[in-house]
């Protein structure tokens, strides 16, 4: 029972950052912009949040800074792809390369002199679970109580994002821009503005997902703290068929495998650690392939039709 509770706790906690980032990327891709900069933006979000909290001791400020950094990087992507009409894949990969390198660089420069200017190995305030200690020890139920405020916020965000996308006027406009920008434009919707807006919103949410890693899930900064989660997010967007309501299941699956292998390692199994570390990624990809395959066979595929293409009104 104890094992199950702890696996469940970690599963839900690990799912948080993935789900936020996935919802962010869904909003971006729904506008027709493919942002492959997720990994880089998450890393920059994680670094900036941790550094800010380390010096200011304010978690709120840490989140704010991360959101701003994420928004700025996404703004760059929107500018390159929408205004300059750069290839979306190239621009996104550049942002990931930049974010990976620059976060690693800053991690060795922003720290205090006492730590050789490094941020690695330092501790700062973290977002603590809300519930009192006794509540966390209740079997099973404790797993749901032993979570921080971000996690609860995410579970509020999922239905909101779904409702926004499918039931509201701006959601309808957003979907139309990603499906058919020519039509959206002819109907009086500003395609460029829409794409800028949701790429930036998406970048902010992605950075928030990164911040959750360094402020709650694995508190502290370590190089490449995301461990490829940015790429898992890209996969989860496909898995969710661009539907926020489905994003959480993929995130929990990844978190779940992660939690199980984590516990196995802690219990001193003879399976090599590297193999166990690989499991969440392999598992996610296998399930993803199966699910997408099955979906594609059974009915329509849900990718926004104009995903990855640029739009200019008087193009011939």
């Amino acid at each position: 029972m104890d094992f199950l509770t702890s696996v469940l706790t970690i599963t839900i906690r690990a799912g948080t950052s993935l789900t936020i980032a996935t919802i962010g990327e869904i909003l971006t891709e729904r506008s027709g912009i493919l942002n492959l900069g997720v990994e880089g933006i998450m890393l920059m979000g994680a670094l900036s949040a941790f550094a800010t909290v380390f010096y200011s001791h304010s978690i709120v400020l840490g989140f704010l800074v991360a959101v701003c950094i994420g928004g700025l990087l996404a703004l760059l992507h929107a500018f390159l792809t929408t205004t300059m009409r750069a290839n979306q894949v190239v621009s996104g990969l550049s942002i990931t390369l930049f974010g990976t390198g620059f976060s690693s660089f800053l991690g060795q420069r922003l720290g205090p002199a006492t730590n050789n200017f490094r941020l690695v190995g330092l501790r700062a305030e973290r977002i603590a679970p809300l519930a009192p200690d006794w509540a966390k020890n209740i079997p099973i139920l404790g797993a749901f109580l032993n979570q921080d405020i971000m996690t609860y916020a995410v579970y509020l965000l999922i239905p909101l994002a779904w409702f926004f996308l499918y039931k509201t006027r701006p959601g309808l406009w957003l979907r139309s821009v990603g499906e058919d920008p020519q039509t959206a434009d002819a109907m009086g919707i500003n395609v460029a503005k829409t794409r800028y807006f949701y790429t930036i919103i998406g970048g902010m949410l992605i950075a928030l997902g990164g911040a959750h890693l360094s402020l709650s899930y694995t508190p502290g900064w370590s190089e490449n703290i995301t461990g490829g989660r940015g790429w898992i997010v890209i996969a989860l967007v496909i898995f969710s068929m661009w539907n926020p309501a489905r994003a959480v299941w993929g995130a929990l699956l990844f978190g779940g495998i992660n939690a199980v292998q984590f516990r196995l390692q802690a219990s001193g199994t003879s399976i090599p650690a590297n193999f166990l570390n690989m499991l969440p990624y392999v598992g996610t990809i296998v399930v993803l392939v199966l699910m997408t395959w099955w979906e594609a066979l059974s009915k329509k595929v849900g990718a926004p039709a104009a995903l990855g293409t640029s739009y200019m009104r008087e193009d011939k």
Partner: protein
Amino acid sequence: MSDTAIPKVEMRNISKSFPGVLANDCVDLKLRKGEVLALLGENGAGKSTLMNVLCGLYRPDRGEIYIDGKYAEIHSPRDAQKYGIGMVHQNFKLVDSMNVLENTILGLRDEPFVPDLKRVRSRLVGLAEQYHLDVDPNASIWQLSVGEQQRVEILKLLYRNAEILILDEPTAVLTPQESHELNRVVHVMKQEGKSAIFITHKMEEVMEFSDRVMVLRKGKVVAETDTSATTPKELARMMVGRDVLFQIEKKPMTPGKVVLELSHIEALGDRGLPALKDVSFQLRAGEILGIAGVAGNGQRELAEVVTGLRRSSKGKMQIEGEDMTNKSPLEIIRRGVAHIPQDRASVGAAGDLSVASNLAMKQYRSRPLATGIFLLQKKIFEFAGRLIEKFKISTPSPKTQVKFLSGGNIQKTILAREIGAARTLMVAVYPSRGLDVGATETVRRQLVSQRDAGLGVLFFSEDLDELLQISDRVAVLFEGKIMGIFDANTVNIDHIGMLMAGMDREAGA
């Protein structure tokens, strides 16, 4: 209506250029209230450009627009909407994956944050009844036929209280019966005091639909007259600038052996639904078999099965008596089958490659254009030069990228290449679509001369007149089924129209 009344729309001195083309050259246009104006002109005459200016999609280089006599600033489709201008574009502006209701309110700023779809539906149904535009409001666009989609487009404009409707070649995708329906709808709108501009290049439609007609040629207004004061022949002359030969000389057919035989062919469409159902026919050498039907009834799939681009799930296909069912495109090309595809820009030609490369595309595997794995550039350019001259392809040089050519010249490039490769069978899918009168004539003549040279020609067209004129026999395709095969010289055009709409005369429709 007197000329002194303030026009509903007045466009003054509109000029608009694209790189290398002056699409509109100081065009003036007046549209009176309650009037239907036909805008007649060849492809590339600047009709659509002018209307795209009016509906806010294009910004003119020069010129002003006045609505009800007042200067109107139209910088975007949204501005145009405010002035009550709505346009049904040639490529419908509908989001395929959304339903009719969602498409109706798309872009409307006065809808509440959470749109009340029930209210939208009841208003839409009301409008549909008023104008006899029958459509299921909950259907997704991709489930609708092209005719239904057009009704959605018109309903969408009516929902937005459009006072000025622009219809860009609305009948191109309709059966004759549907065209009559559309004419009636336009008539009702006229009675309600709405005005319409109607783009077309068909004289009969001008006569049938419009009160007044304006003829554009090479971006300029060449004539403007009341419809009742002119004749189709006169209009055609004004449009083209010379007398047009509507007839094509055709020798009687001398059919040879069977070159293509389909027996009980079935195939799935892109969405995995059956697109061809039990299709059987024979095509002989020296014969043109025309395929009639409203777009989207399996024409593309049929052409793709014959050329090896799509697998058939059932049935058998023979070329010159040999089983070629589900063989690769290369094997079918090697049997001497040529293909002029429906989508000339993306399937027919590689836009980023040069004219010469595109012309050589079916012969580069062997001598004289190549030895081993090496292409002989000099030979390729000589080869291309000959074809460019023979087919009168107007291109700055053989090295020009194909995407910079006009639609007509891209089509001539494809035609030149395919005719060179054709030995047994020519599959031509909408080969004259979107071409001007001159290029259309070239295409039609070439098809007939291929037939006279002893090839079988499988000819797809949406233009019934063209189809009956060129073909020896006509097959009607409806929802993937062959509704009947007729002799083109004796068949009744109304009967074909009924079959295209899926109605059998016997069924008493």
